[in-house]
């Protein structure tokens, strides 16, 4: 059972900070709706995946030290990203495997880290959401969320609470979109082919909007949709759940549309 009004630190994620601040505010709104007391530690930057996945353990470890520092003392640490939450929950402790002092701290942090949507359903047992939506959407499961954190049912359960929203599943919801962090710029041709396949699947659902829980995938998918001049738009699932989709145009769209 969670404390009645848990203190939750929001791990904003670097992509949300830079590209899509609205997702961070949507996360705060949802966490508060679920009864959490939300704080945003100032000293955070990035979870360290670019270094960790490029083989630069030392840089990843140095960043992780800062995270251990800034995110100590909260009941929970929540990120609006399966990928960053997976990094903190699954991978960060491995950076301190040889360190008897820091390893317990890293593991203690990992125990308290959650991805936003699964935290809302699994820990806070949130049943109703503020969002309102009319129309058909589809959902892309980000690989880290799906396979590292087993997030599949949770976003669907919350979306089902929105009257008027119909979810049309992808033919291959578990297929990677080709983002893969630095992969998308190291192997752009392969990445483009993968996102083109994903976008084909999205377009074939007939949905007007694709949702996902990770901004990396979303920038990739939205970028490809726009390149194909598709009318399908893309948003982070938290924007819709929080009812903040009216405040900002879809990803890759301008205010004038």
């Amino acid at each position: 059972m969670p404390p009645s009004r848990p203190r939750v630190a929001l791990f904003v994620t670097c992509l949300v900070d830079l590209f899509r601040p609205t997702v961070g505010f949507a996360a705060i709104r949802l966490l508060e709706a679920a009864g959490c007391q939300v704080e945003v530690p100032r000293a955070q930057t990035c979870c360290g995946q670019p270094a960790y996945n490029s083989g630069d353990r030392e840089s990843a470890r140095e960043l992780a030290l800062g995270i251990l520092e800034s995110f100590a003392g909260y009941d929970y640490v929540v990120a609006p990203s399966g990928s960053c939450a997976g990094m903190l929950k699954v991978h960060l402790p491995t950076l301190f495997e040889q360190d008897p002092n820091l390893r317990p701290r890293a593991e203690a942090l990992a125990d308290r880290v959650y991805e936003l949507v699964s935290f809302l359903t699994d820990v806070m047992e949130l049943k109703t959401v503020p969002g309102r939506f009319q129309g058909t959407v589809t959902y892309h499961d980000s690989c880290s969320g799906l396979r590292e954190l087993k997030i599949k049912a949770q976003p669907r359960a919350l979306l089902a609470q929105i009257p008027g929203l119909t979810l049309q599943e992808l033919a291959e919801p578990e297929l990677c979109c080709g983002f893969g962090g630095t992969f998308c710029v190291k192997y752009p041709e392969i990445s483009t082919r993968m996102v083109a396949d994903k976008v084909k699947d999205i377009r074939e659902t007939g949905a007007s909007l694709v949702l996902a829980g990770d901004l990396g995938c979303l920038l990739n998918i939205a970028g490809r949709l726009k390149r194909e001049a598709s009318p399908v738009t893309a948003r982070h699932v938290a924007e819709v759940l929080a009812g903040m989709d009216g405040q900002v145009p879809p990803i890759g769209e301008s205010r004038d549309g």
Partner: protein
Amino acid sequence: MLVTSPAFKENASHALADAALQKALARARTHFQRRRADAAAGLPEFEDLRARAREIKDHTLAHLDFYLERYAENVERAGGFVHWCRTAEDARAAILEICERAGARTVTKGKSMLTEEIGLNEHLERHGITPVETDLGEYILQLRDEPPSHIIAPAYHLNLDDWEKSFREHHTGLPPERAFHERRDILTEARKVLRERFLAADVGITGANFLIAETGSSVIVTNEGNGDLTQTLPHVHIALASIEKVVPTLEDAFCLLRLLARSATGQDFSVYTTFSTGPRRPGDLDGPEEYHVVLLDNGRSAMLGGEFQPMLRCIRCAACMNHCPVYGAVGGHAYGWVYPGPMGAVLTPSLVGVDQAGHLPNASTFCGRCEAVCPMQIPLPQMMRHWREREFERHLTPATVRTGLGLWAYVARRPTLYRWATRAAAATLGWLGRKRGRFASLPFAGGWTGGRDLPAPEGETFFARYAKTQRQGKA
């Protein structure tokens, strides 16, 4: 076999532009994924078997010296010979010597990736011995002089018209009206031609899916029956196996066998699972008179005790490549050596060196699907990451990537500087992209914008806006 892994990017580029290959890849991918999912769902114990299989292999690897010795003793007790070989060269020499002593002119071969690894066919040919591949997929590749593109379905990359064309070209002396439009025709023709080869061969060479320490048996798993004809009809049977194939007992083997076909082809069990233990016994009416096992290390023992040891659990089912979106996009040849896909991305750097195969562990999104379907629960993404760490340590990571990472890490470790830098970047990009909401091209972002637009940031960072709301809240 020539290693073209350093040209992975170029190989991939060609593969992506090859329409016929893309057609073959799309067909095969959905086939194998659906079959594996159905087979796994059909056995409620599947997940428990995976965990147990992993324990069995871990136990075996931790005592590999013991089990190999017991295995070899039992082979010899059954009248077989064991040839311990450290390198590919040793194995080629051992096989050649057996063939020459048998006076062999032709040898038939069952499908064996290990013979590809050691370049056996070329070696035999150089010494005047004709190797004949008998697995249907391997057979057509031998006609086409191509390496396999997949470890269980060697001709994964071919379409029916490729088969028709190759059979027409090579099976001359047939009536011109002879049709190869149908799969049935091709199969019938191959069966006829290869049957003669089976009967004429002096030596049969197979791989081994497992070696059983308890009994001294080598095990092969096939659907065609070609492996059985290869090891039954000639006077001499040679089984080539790498040292990590050993398992202690028949019961251990069956835990793995319950997973193998389901993970590979989606069958509950392969058509032929055959245990060979020594040569023909007194009174037997058939079977080889000599039985040899060529037991090859070729870099495996050096993987023990280190971070790549779990790779030695691999049973070569190919589920990882069947579910890999990168393999699905570029096919097996792009990987540039014997083992493609995720298992190849881990194994190839171990066997040919990470300086040659450095691309392979990098060409992954870490989507994790390979690990999710691996019957032996091999943490493939984690091991690819280990290779990236080795590359980084050895300065094999491209200089631009290193410099970029260094700069980024410097800033990311300093939140105040980072706030300032992100605020400037978001503001600039947001302002530049305010009209369209996205960029069709950007300097230094060609990798991204080659195939997709870059969505523009909202313009203000989260932290800038959050600070504003906090101030307003307090006011």
